[in-house]
């Protein structure tokens, strides 16, 4: 596994990469630090393994074969895993990375008998999507992928928000009106938020990583709802949303 022990030089975009706003590497470094540390349900080494498996998935022959199949359940095989994660976790990471639009509630719940749980899955998802988006930025910019950070010691906190409840999604979520004092920052103090923001609130740090990255890659939460706001970007808001819409459409994403 390609890892780097020091974060000091992580995401150094100053060497021949003109024009990258300073808030982007700052957000990437913050998220790398969060990924490397213990979470609520997984240790740092597991979380780094999620990141590694997400990278493995892009060249996984079984994933490619399954992606091409009419039904993802119609074929069986082995992922090109390089970690010691439980099989269900490896499969979840690879599916999220390569074939997300065909994930189902039945599939997710079937993993609960094989080492995952709702909260363990949400934490895995939060790490995977963070790494995917940072890697995607590097690919789009023609930059090499950042080496994964070294796992930090520590035990998972085992924290589950008491206010998490069934909101109709596959996993419980915390509604803005229910957030505890310790999660007052989660939705920026807003009384409403989009379902996609609260989707991972069963593991609050997953939401924090999401908003940290979105604020740098897209728009800060306060600007998202204002259709006239472009957050000071060099693109107009319609240009931003044209890209967003095209990526979502090509990803076969209804939301």
């Amino acid at each position, binding site marked *: 596994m390609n890892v780097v022990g020091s974060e000091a030089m992580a995401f150094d975009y100053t060497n021949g990469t003109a024009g990258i706003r300073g808030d*982007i590497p700052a957000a990437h470094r913050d998220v790398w630090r969060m990924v490397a540390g213990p979470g609520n349900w997984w240790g740092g080494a597991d979380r780094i393994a999620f990141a590694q498996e997400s990278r493995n998935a892009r060249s996984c022959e079984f994933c490619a074969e399954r992606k091409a199949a009419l039904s993802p359940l119609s074929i069986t095989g082995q992922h090109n895993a390089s970690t010691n994660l439980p099989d269900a976790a490896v499969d979840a990471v690879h599916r999220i990375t390569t074939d997300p639009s065909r994930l189902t509630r039945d599939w997710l719940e079937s993993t609960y008998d094989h080492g995952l749980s709702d909260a363990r899955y949400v934490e895995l*998802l939060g790490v995977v999507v963070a790494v995917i988006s940072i890697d995607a930025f590097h690919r789009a910019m023609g930059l090499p992928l950042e080496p994964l950070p070294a796992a930090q010691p520590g035990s998972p906190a085992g924290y589950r928000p008491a206010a998490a409840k069934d909101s109709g999604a596959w996993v419980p979520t915390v509604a803005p009106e229910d957030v505890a004092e310790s999660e007052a920052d989660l939705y920026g103090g807003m009384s409403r938020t989009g379902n996609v923001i609260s989707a991972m609130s069963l593991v609050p740090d997953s939401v924090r990583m999401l908003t940290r990255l979105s604020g740098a890659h897209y728009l800060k939460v306060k600007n998202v709802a204002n259709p006239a706001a472009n957050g000071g970007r060099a693109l107009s808001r319609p240009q931003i949303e044209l890209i967003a819409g095209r990526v979502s459409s090509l990803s076969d994403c209804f939301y």
Partner: protein
Amino acid sequence: MLRVSSQSNEEDVNLASIVEGTARDSGIDADKALIEFAEAGLGDDGDAIDAARNTVAEQLGEDAMVDAAGVIANFQRMVRIADGTGIALDDAVMMLTADIREDLGINAYGGAENSTEVGTGKRIIGRLMTPFVSRLISRIAPR
């Protein structure tokens, strides 16, 4: 958000460009370059990504190119959160987008079964509200 943001900017946009890509003129400045960058950014062809990125930089400048790369990255995350948690499309958005989703074929996308389609009444209300949708979204969206 493309529709409401274009309304706010008083631009006339063809939403079909989201689904059909460069085959449609969206009416947005430099749309072809941005769409091609988005399309390349989802793949692994480094040469195609480089070419598309350079075109955006030539047409809109380096800052815009970086911003576009950020948006491409961002939505590769957001689509997986939505599809990976089975969330429903927010109620107000379901109502206001009923016609668009049907016209563009978006209701056939993965994850559509996680949302309950609005009835005829809400569909009519959504249609009536369309001309005012940007102001409405500003009111009902997170504050």
